[in-house]
């Protein structure tokens, strides 16, 4: 096990290197000049040139890249062209918000998706199965900007139960920064006011963001469960008098979860990268909006920082998925 982890972490260095190389080249060859974006609408050629020199953009591409890698090796992601802050600071400000939202959405998707998939498989072609199918199809096909607005209209506009925007109320101070997750931080510090406010704020965006994943997970669990339930060892188990919860959870679901884990793993990755629309609709101060703005502004250091962070995320998620396989199925452990 340790060997696998070490090997994968070693592999991570190569992935990051490859990602930096490709994204550096891509972001620098597209037409557009960050110096001109920074100099303003009507800057003179001299002003643009002076900014280009300050940013080092007048150097050949390979020198710029070598400088970047040298900086990166010391943990320095550079200074953002748009916000003028160290990129790492910006990422650390926005990333926890995105991660917190993704985790919350993920939790909702799993808590509802797995039981719903199981029920729908066990009660095949009944009301519950049809309900789960309609639910899933809607989840996948309704775009987030629409479901987001509907949810806001109902729960904020009419009922007034939840706020429509932000991560915490304007006049409440965020909990003392430990993890950057407001809910976790307020639990750690015992700040109940911040805790209630953050739960209230995260509920709607997390719910909306979870729809698509929930649908995928439900369908996947249903299909796997149906397959597993028709296998011989289940019949043998039933013949041996095993039934009820024990049969479903320990015998069937455990095996049905193996393919589901793959789906869940990749869907978590897409939650991280795909929260842009949800973040915009709910004014969630996460990475999505920050990155879109950075791309529009050709903020190279910020784009690179984000790409590296997300690729590390993907590698780690894949590693976790593989380790989970081992836990669920001893045969794969070797």
């Amino acid at each position, binding site marked *: 096990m340790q060997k696998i982890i070490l090997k994968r972490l070693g592999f991570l260095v190569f992935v990051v290197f490859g990602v930096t190389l490709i994204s550096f080249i891509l972001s620098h060859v*597209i*037409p*557009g*000049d960050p110096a*001109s974006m*920074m*100099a*303003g*609408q*009507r*800057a*003179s*050629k*001299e*002003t*643009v040139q*002076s*900014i280009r020199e*300050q940013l080092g953009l007048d150097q050949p591409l390979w020198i710029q890249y070598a400088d970047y890698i040298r900086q990166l090796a010391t943990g320095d992601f550079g200074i953002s062209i*748009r*916000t*003028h802050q*160290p990129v790492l600071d*910006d990422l650390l400000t926005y990333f926890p*918000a995105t991660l917190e939202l993704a985790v919350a959405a993920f939790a909702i998707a799993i808590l509802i998706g797995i039981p719903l998939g199981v029920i729908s498989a066990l009660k095949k072609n009944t009301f519950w199965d049809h309900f789960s199918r309609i639910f899933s199809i809607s989840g996948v096909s309704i775009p987030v900007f629409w479901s*987001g*607005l509907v949810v*806001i209209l109902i729960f*904020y506009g009419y009922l*007034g*139960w*939840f*706020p*429509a*925007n*932000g*991560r915490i*109320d*304007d*006049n*409440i101070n*965020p909990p003392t920064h430990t993890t950057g997750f407001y809910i976790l931080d307020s639990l750690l510090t015992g700040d109940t006011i911040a*805790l*209630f*406010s953050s*739960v*209230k*704020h995260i509920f709607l965006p997390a719910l909306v963001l979870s729809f698509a994943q929930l649908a995928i997970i439900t369908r996947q669990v249903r299909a796997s469960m149906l397959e597993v339930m028709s296998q011989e060892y289940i019949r043998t188990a039933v013949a041996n008098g095993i039934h009820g919860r024990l049969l479903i959870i320990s015998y069937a679901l455990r095996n049905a979860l193996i393919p589901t884990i793959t789906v869940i793993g990749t869907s978590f990755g897409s939650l991280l990268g795909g929260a842009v629309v949800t*973040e*915009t*609709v*709910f*004014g969630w*101060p*996460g990475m999505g*909006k*920050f990155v879109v703005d950075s791309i*529009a*502004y*050709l903020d190279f250091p910020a784009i690179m920082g984000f790409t590296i962070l997300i690729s590390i995320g993907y590698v780690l998620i894949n590693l976790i998925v593989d380790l989970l396989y081992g836990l669920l199925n001893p045969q794969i452990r070797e």
Partner: protein
Amino acid sequence: MRKISLILLALCFMMITTACKQNANAPSKTTASNAASGNAAKSELVVAIPADIGTIDPAVTMDNSSWKIIYPTYERLVDYDGATTKIKPGLAKKWTVSKDGKTWTFTLEKGHKFADGTEVDAKAVKESFERTLKIKKGPAGIFSMVSKITADNPTTVTFTLSENFPPFLSTLATNYGNIVSPKVMEYEKNGDMGQNYLANHTMGSGPYQLESWKKGDSIKLSLNPYSKVKPAFKSVVFKIVGDSSVQRLQLEKGEVDIAEGIPVDQIKDVKSIRNVRLVQKPSLVTDYVYINTSKGNAALQNKKVRQALNEAIDYDALIDAVQLGYATKTRGPVPEGVWGHDNSVKQYKHNVKHAKTLLKEAGVKNLSLDLLYSDNKTWWKTEALTIQSNLADIGVKVNLKSVAYATFRDMIDKGDFDLALGVWSPDFGDPYGIMNYWYDSKNFGLAGNRAFYKNSKVDRLLKEAATNNSKQERTALYKQIQDIVMDDAPYILLYQKDYILPMSKDVKGFVYNPMLDGIYNLADMSK
């Protein structure tokens, strides 16, 4: 395992229900729960803005979305007077200019203090401008003609210019003229002159100062304790609300007082909301088409072809289709509201028949042109389609080319287009802010002459107008230039956009100054 899951579920449920209950039971007990209940306190103004902003260092930023934070937190030597482009005293109570226009001397009013308690004196003014010039970013370009600044005594500061530049006074009233406390240098890191620190802090003498900035969420201003001005709003919150429908809902519920990001197609619905009024004023934003007169399709070098394109546009229909009527047809390059605007300047009218004759006279047949635009302005796609259909009426085929904004700017700068959509608003209240940028052949590309237009007579007259100290003579010169360029037609001038701002009827005292688009006179406002 089951027990843990049950406990976790119960905990989640408890938190959610308690949150809801708390909200429903005490909707307006404290401001903390005003998220769903609305009605922010009378001493607080809440403005919904569509996106977070970049750096707020006045010596660095050229992005006017950040000016709404910078302007009320700093002071300038002079200011724009009310809703006009006239100049009134600011930090300087009076000023003189030498006959040759190269030496400007300002006498400072005593008693202004930065939020850190330091006095705003001549030395501070000198160091602030020198910092801008040394940083050499966009704002330095505006003051490129400043060759020396001296602090003669604590209340007198003198600027020496390398050449006569009559609009100089006007440039001092802009965002670039904000005076930064000399203490900024205490925050210098790696020779950055405090750029990193000032990117998310304020160090000015304005009535407000930045209190907190929750990135991507909200920006809060509080009072500068040392300011002589005592505004009614003790705090101002700029809330980042990316979705326009959500902004509308929040305005309706009274959770925000002003909603900045509502597009014209939703304005009609906003108008019907009780307790919301619409501020509607003509802005100085001109929406126009660049005709590439030297690097584009060769046919565009012919004046008659350019005139034909101008006459092909159905201006009224375009304004209705694109801006739903919230705009005025442009007359002349100098917009209404800036001195030098002339109502007698030629204005092209929709005349398909005559346009076709002009094309015939030019000997142009089967003309096919590329029209470049980007996703930067939401209305540009509709505008491009309308223009395409208008030009088809005179037999000109238009191929629409939509590219990313950064690419768009690059292509404009290189002259890699036939026609392109653009907007312009002058940086300072002087016809120089339009004319010398648009038509001077030394400003080819992004610098302003985006039509790559060259007329040596115009160049000469522009230079004369830029270095003459008599306003009357300058007005006459600019009139003469406007007549020539309108005939040469290097641009298609479409419309002057209206400034539309939905705000709560409770908000009083807002004055829209077209030079300060998007900036609030917070110190005079109340509710």
